């Protein structure tokens, strides 16, 4: 099933989340993490496959994967930078494909494999891309780092030997505001090199 914007909106409507958000100027808070009050907002117990583990979790129909990961599964490494699929800070892999988890409804990924930054080094050893970023000291404030790394890992699974330009395209759905993109790319290229060796 593709996780298109259209499906996302359909999922939200099905979940009844729009009932309360009238969208009055400056008041539209975004229907996040509601529990008791929203009309039709009923939690449902799901089993998710996150970082290789089966996780049982109560989720709302309109709940996004980013919120489930961050606020219900304790996986705060996935960051929220914009809430609107603009910045990529919340990127995770779903069946090895990078997705903006702020724009994926949790109930749509029940039978999928979800991988977050915490799961990359689950065995204790750093993933080659993490090692590349560490060795080359990629990123500064690093708030965007988890999203970039997940996007790079997803891209490199399919394109193991990219040029700098190709890898830049591979992570171009992610924004950094410290903006030393030069060193970010160098560190991810180092990660690509380590990945090819393993």
């Amino acid at each position, binding site marked *: 099933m593709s996780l298109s914007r259209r499906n996302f909106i359909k999922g939200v409507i099905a979940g009844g989340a729009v009932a309360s958000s009238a969208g009055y100027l400056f008041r539209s*808070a975004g229907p996040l*993490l*509601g529990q008791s009050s929203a009309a039709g907002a009923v939690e449902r117990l799901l089993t998710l496959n996150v970082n290789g583990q089966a996780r049982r979790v109560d989720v709302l129909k309109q709940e996004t994967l980013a919120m489930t990961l961050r606020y219900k599964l304790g996986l705060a*490494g996935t960051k929220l930078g914009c809430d609107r699929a603009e910045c990529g800070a919340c990127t995770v892999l779903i069946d090895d494909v990078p997705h903006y988890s702020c724009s994926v409804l949790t109930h749509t990924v029940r039978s999928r494999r979800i991988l977050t930054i915490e799961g990359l080094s689950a065995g204790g050893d750093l993933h080659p891309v993490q090692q590349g970023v560490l060795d080359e*000291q990629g990123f*500064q404030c690093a*708030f965007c780092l988890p999203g970039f790394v997940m996007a790079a890992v997803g891209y490199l699974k399919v394109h193991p030997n990219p040029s700098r330009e190709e890898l830049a395209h591979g992570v171009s759905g992610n924004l950094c505001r*410290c903006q030393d993109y030069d060193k970010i790319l160098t560190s991810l290229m180092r990660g690509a090199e380590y990945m090819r060796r393993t």
Partner: protein
Amino acid sequence: MPGNLIGRSYIPPDHLAKVTGRARYAEDFRADGMLFTKLLLSPMPHARVRRLDASAALAMPGVRAILTADDLPDLDGAERALTNEPLYAGEPILAVAAVDELTAADAIEKIVVDLEPLPFVTNALDSLRPDGPNARLNGNAWGPPPPPAAQGPPARPSLETVKWTAGDFAEEEQGRLPMGTPLEEWAYGDLDAGFAAAALVLDETFVVQSTGHHPMETRSAMAYWQNGRLFIHASTQSVAQTRGNIARWVGIDPSQVMLISEYTGGGFGSKGGGAVSSAIPALLSRKANAPVMMRITREEESYIGRARTNMTGRVKVGFAQGGRITAMDLFIVQDTGPYGPLGDHRSAGNAASLIYQPPAMRWRAVNVLTNTPPRSQQRSPGPMQANGIIEPVITKAARQLGIDQVAIRRMNSPEGKAPFGPVLPSGQRNHVTSAFVKQALDRGAALFNWEARGRRTGQRQGSKVRGIGVAVGPHGAGSIGWDSIMTIRPDGRLYVQSGVGNLGTHSVIDLARVAADLLDVPWEKVEVVWGDTGKHLPWTCPSVGSQTTHGMTRANHAGAMDARRKLQEIAARDLGGSPDEYETGGERVYRRSNPARGLTYAQAARRAIALGGRYYGHELPDDINPMTRASATSLAGLGLMGVAKDNYGRNGATYSFVIGFAEVEVDVETGAVTLVDLVAVGDVGTVINPRSLLAQIKGGCCLGVAHALFQKSVVDPRYGVSLTDRFHYSKPLSILDVPSAMQAEALNLADPETPVGARGVGEPPVGAAYGAVMNAIADAVGEDVFRRAPVTADVILMSLEHGRRMHEPLRMHV
């Protein structure tokens, strides 16, 4: 300062947590029973709250508390977290705490707010018109700063009302900035004689845009209270300096604030001393008697986050035939937003006098308030705007006089202890501690291959034409007089307390490398303690204005020298002779004449504890800040303590410089600009951490590129509402907008006025790249195609199509 660690790259100790996702930023913390808050933002740009009815909201299940401006301490007219008189659309009026965000948002919907609309203005020039509206009920512009007080905090400037005459606006139609009566002004040299002697005089107006800071991490915060003390997880650039601000915003004593901020997701000046909005979860938590999380969305950040002051500037410059500037007359209308006052306009005047070294100059300005999102210093506040206003004139003059663009900047650049700014009360003008701009220009021109590249610019290849540009970005780069605390403990390790915020520049850690080098402690035995005011931090500079590396390497130099002296004294006391006969090195203090005779640092630490007094931190220097005193007292007894204030002298004001070189390709059929290459060279003193330094230069340059090409603020003048409320509407630079490889270097020439030689670097690259990219566009398509930034495709295309500038000449926020 030579050493084993200074000048070498290393992997900072916080990086592993970053790459594994374990680094916790403010919104990553949780607490039992944590509530969520949502804000009610003003839909009007200026209004007064006549009536609030929250009864329906408070009756909802799950709603726990409501906070209004009436619950906040008075801050003597300064901006507060909530207001009853919103001064911009998006200003928070109240906050609701509820069991979850959706309930809080629903509660906000149920609150009835009766707002009385008040006059507003979004364009600073409109406020100066004879019948123009004022942004605030009691004025429209900030007066000049009062003279510095002998004691206490500096007095706030007065709010004034300035209106210019219709005659002042006569030149507006021609796109020239009206120049009515300014509120601030200075001059030096003989301006009239300078212009009279000039072979060429140019007079141009330029509009520098406002842009939101938009760090990746918004100003989210989580707070709770324990036993009367506030625990707050917040995002700040400056941990030590933020504690007092939060205390003031919340209305409690600083000693009752426990601020935890180990990781900050960027700030760029918008979180210099924290964020005033952090008072909301703090006070709501006290009211609701439960922890409160305030998640700030990107849209909310676009209002309550900060933005750069925009300026419309007009400059008249006289040039001798050979290119040397003879006189400069600069007038700035600054939009300081609804609060402030910001001082970017003053920094811009100082920067202009510094990097172009006019022998005679006048600076005039008016600092106007508008009902647009609030401003704070943004990475190179002032000098970057000066680059925008003045660079087009320099570029045009070089063209008309037939002088190379690097040559005209080189001949006008500062050197050594170059003077800048107005004549001070002492009768002298200020000067910089050092400047090696000419060397940096030469090095950059060689790296960039300036001459060879210049031969292939300006010629069309199909629809594409290339251009090259250069600019000098200056910025103040260092403060003095801060404190340091470090301890050598019986485990033989050196613990360095760091009150710097951890926003990714690594200065929070770098400063300890100086102490480790001076004491010759291997890096594996150094522990940097940071990110939590409960960990006993020293009085530390705010990490703004590129001052940290300079200010805190000096402080830690002083602290390490104090520790070394104490090691020598203890050795002399135990082993005989005088302290001066002892050396430190190899984790030992030993007799110079007999190196076998000595103490290890671990032994000396135990002796310091036994001796007590000043050796282990019980007796402290008189001149340290009370915060340092309290922290040192808490650490007393743990080992040999180095504690000192930076009392080193300094002759001049510390400035850094970065030279930017850019090549662009412009498609004259679409107006699209592609950045082909960017090279930057820094004159930033001794290099402490090469890899981080180059990241700062390249990252700062990229912010300048984004200002030149994309980013802006757009405010609807009719409704006074900001329209750039998402990333999408003010496009930040992406990885595809920069060349796939960039080159940067630093001269690594020590500043002679600081013991470590290091100056700051964060800011000067911004104006360097901003100016260089715009100059390169001018080189490609003509220097009269644009007089505002960003230089978007439509600006270029419209001008080329019509053969003259078509963009709105003076209006701001378009």
